[in-house]
């Protein structure tokens, strides 16, 4: 319990740090973001709306400490200000409509990559020097060297444009009404395949090698020899004795890689025009929509922190040593 409380405190601290960073950035950087932003946008803003923006970005040079607490208060109540490029929609509304798609894409690809990568790693370590062990790692490392978005471009070119077998963009077909029915779900799944596939391909190698290397270490433990001496079936030794004890580092790196997957999903979304946070982020960047950018940064950070906390919960379940400590 104390472990979880400590972690929770740490995540809150991390979130506070990113809010503070968000607050300080426009104030520390040279130039006036509000003027830059307004000169780019086509929207007609009321004078008092411009004034609100200036206060939020801190360009009016008001006292910094009260402004900081006001900012903290606004963020904690979920008020990220107005989006400039999609004026007058509030930032939180824009994000709320995009976040589910990013979560769907990110989580699907993460889960597939973790399961597949760990299984491959277990098999590779079990048959050291076998076919899987000699062919898969270098191949996957090579694929993993490609930038996420480039592989996405390649997949889009081959399967979308040349062969025409996969949908090229968006999360579901135009004209389809979102709803909980088979047609819609199948359509969403079809649109998910290519983006998820590219993320899985790029991240698979890391999972496989990580698992393989830990497995090799566990394989030389005495309890494996003991299990063998007892005459247990190899299959059972591999999964229940060796792999089970090699799982822990994988769980830890899963927490770490959630942030990484979100980043990869951002770029992949841009290529596939997938309506997630990343695609919107590109729009925000192009429209110099600073409030939207900041809001998205905070939302993604919060999502990553929550995901990490969930991983911690799993960790406590898996490793009894943590529970006692």
């Amino acid at each position: 319990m104390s472990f979880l409380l400590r972690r929770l405190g740490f995540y809150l601290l991390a979130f506070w740090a990113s809010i503070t960073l968000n607050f300080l950035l426009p104030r520390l950087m040279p130039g006036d973001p509000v003027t830059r932003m307004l000169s780019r946008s086509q929207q007609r803003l009321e004078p008092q709306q411009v004034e609100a923006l200036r206060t939020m970005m801190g360009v009016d040079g008001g006292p910094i400490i009260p402004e900081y607490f006001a900012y903290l208060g606004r963020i904690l109540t979920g008020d990220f200000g107005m989006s400039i490029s999609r004026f007058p929609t509030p930032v939180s509304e824009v994000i709320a409509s995009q976040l589910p798609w990013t979560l769907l894409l990110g989580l699907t690809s993460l889960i597939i990559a973790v399961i597949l990568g760990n299984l491959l790693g277990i098999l590779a370590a079990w048959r050291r020097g076998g076919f899987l062990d000699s062919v898969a790692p270098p191949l996957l490392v090579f694929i993993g060297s490609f930038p996420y978005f480039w592989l996405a471009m390649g997949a889009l070119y081959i399967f979308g444009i040349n062969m025409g077998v996969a949908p090229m963009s968006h999360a579901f077909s135009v004209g389809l009404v979102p709803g909980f029915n088979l047609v819609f779900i199948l359509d969403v799944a079809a649109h998910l395949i290519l983006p998820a596939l590219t993320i899985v391909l790029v991240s698979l190698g890391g999972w496989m090698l990580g698992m393989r290397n830990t497995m090799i270490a566990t394989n030389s433990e005495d309890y494996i020899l003991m299990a063998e001496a007892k005459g247990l079936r190899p299959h059972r030794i591999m999964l229940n004795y060796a792999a089970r004890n090699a799982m822990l580092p994988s769980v830890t790196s899963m927490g770490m890689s959630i942030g990484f997957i979100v980043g990869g999903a951002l770029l992949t979304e841009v290529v596939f025009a997938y309506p997630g946070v990343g695609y919107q982020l590109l729009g925000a960047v192009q429209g110099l929509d600073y409030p939207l950018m900041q809001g998205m940064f905070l939302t993604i950070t919060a999502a990553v922190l929550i995901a990490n906390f969930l991983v911690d919960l799993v960790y406590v379940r898996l490793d009894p040593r943590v529970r006692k400590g």
Partner: protein
Amino acid sequence: MSQNDTNPQTAVAEDPTDESAVNRARVNTTRLLRTLLRNGKAVAGLSIILVFIILALLAPLLFPGDPSHITSDGASTPSLQHLLGTTTKGQDVLGLTLWGARSSLFVGFAAGIFSTIVGVLVGLSGAYFGRGLDEVLSLVTNVFLLVPGLPLLVILAAFMPPGIGTVIVVLVITGWAGSARVMRSQAMSIRGKDYVAAALVSGERPLRIMVREILPNMASVVMTTLLGCIIGSIGAQAGLEFLGLGDVNTISWGTNLFWATSDGSLMLGQWWIFVPSGLAIALVAFALALCNYAVDEITNPRLRRPKHATKSTAATTVARKEEK
């Protein structure tokens, strides 16, 4: 740092207690380099990187003039005149790729090296001084590790004035934490060794112990971290520029891909425009990863491939028995 650093020879002569550490470090480093050159992965990786560096240096000779100069010969397929074809703006793709190598490699290596240096400083001082300083540094490191990298990159780059300097600074800000954590845990284990205690007792200053006693003994970890940081930086730079957040006027692999998408070459099926830059990024990253695995294999004998499974380590007993 002491004045001895510029001339290790005098350092050895003046200070006999230092001799063993310096020699040990030197032997370690040369041995590591020699084994590296006997390792197939390392040789392959190093040669690929070398080829790219040479091509990048030769770019002004091979493709003189401004490679982004717009000509009327637009979107032509690869031919003898343009080996990799031209972009929709009529720029030679091979020329853009070679010129792009200059900025991409420079930014990647620079950001990677700086991130590693920051990581070494933070990790070493945290591990050496311990207590309060370590607590604070670890906390900051962990916060930076947890905050998702690319979104942070994006908002940092969006607020700072565009340019290569900004890209490097932003990459270092988001990239140092990973290396700091590795450095700290490695330095912690060395901190407890007897020779560090001996150096402490003989009254050496903290900075000297860190640089002369601890750092040389974690050379291989520093090396893998450096390689990892460079790989990360090259990828992150490409992503950032692909989003249009770098300096779109410089030529790099990332901006090449940015222009390729914004000119719609993907939708028009002009594969020759976006393939070379992506392939170049992948090849360099792959080459660096090869070096990384080579260093791993050399320093961790367990990971070495059993060429002929003669001696029975427990790991192979299990696997072999199962194969029978």
